[in-house]
């Protein structure tokens, strides 16, 4: 387990946490982005707040098509049946990644709480998490579509 103040380790831990959630709950392995500039269109953004020893926001951004595919695979239904569950599915994935990431940092369990997820549709917005350092970001490939993870924290 990694010390919670070891920020250099957060990016690989975030990727590991996301990879485990996708493998177990979605049934897909996440791959590295071939091109680091391969940022997804932000059709959907799910966010979970962290409060306590670690304060900030963890977000996941992806295209609508990628989100529908996630919901479909999570529920084991066709994509046309998954449409109504997309918001809930992406929110839950974000929630599980935040929880899984938190569990990999020593001593955070009782000292960092998670909010319920919030999901935004659309890309015409500005997001400010009042972080005091740059975000920890990762872009990973899900079934050929990029998804972007971002963790913004302040001390």
């Amino acid at each position, binding site marked *: 387990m990694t010390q919670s103040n070891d920020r250099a380790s957060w990016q690989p831990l975030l990727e590991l946490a996301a990879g*485990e*959630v996708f493998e*177990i*709950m979605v049934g897909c392995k996440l791959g590295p982005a071939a091109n680091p500039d391969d940022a997804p269109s932000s059709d959907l953004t799910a966010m979970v707040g962290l409060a306590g020893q670690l304060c900030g926001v963890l977000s996941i951004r992806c295209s609508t098509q990628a989100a529908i595919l996630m*919901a479909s695979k*999570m*529920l*084991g239904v066709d994509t046309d049946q998954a449409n109504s*569950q997309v918001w*809930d*599915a992406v*929110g*839950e994935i974000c*929630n*599980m990644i*935040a*929880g*899984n990431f*938190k*569990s990999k940092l020593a001593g*955070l*369990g*009782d000292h960092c*709480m*998670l909010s*319920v997820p919030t999901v935004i549709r659309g890309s015409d917005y500005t997001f400010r998490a009042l972080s005091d350092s740059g975000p920890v970001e990762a872009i990973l490939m899900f079934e050929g579509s990029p998804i972007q993870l971002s963790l913004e924290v302040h001390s």
Partner: protein
Amino acid sequence: MNKVRALIVDDSSVMRKIVERSLRQAGIDLSQVLEASNGAEALGVVRDNPVELILCDINMPVMDGLEFVRQMQALDIPKRPPIVMITTEGSESHVVEALSHGARGYIRKPFTPDQVREHVIPLLEQKP
């Protein structure tokens, strides 16, 4: 093992479906699955319906899973079903609190059907 009537409590309808599917994949023969989106709704379901198993999220609006477990202790029902908490929270104090108020197990998300089997089947096999 007899057929089981289960109550799944989670504010996410996607998670409720995933939990139900995991129970079935774990080999649990479900006769009926009842759902509630928070602890208050779940108390109403339990008052009106006998259930043999409850799987409950912790972090929910209206009434969270810890308060639900506390209020279940005071509920006047003939048979108290085992409650297994399912949550993303890795908080040890939450686990201790839930267990001290009567929850019988704890599964952390993300979870596999094997983990569900390991935590739930022993509870169903115990004599009342």
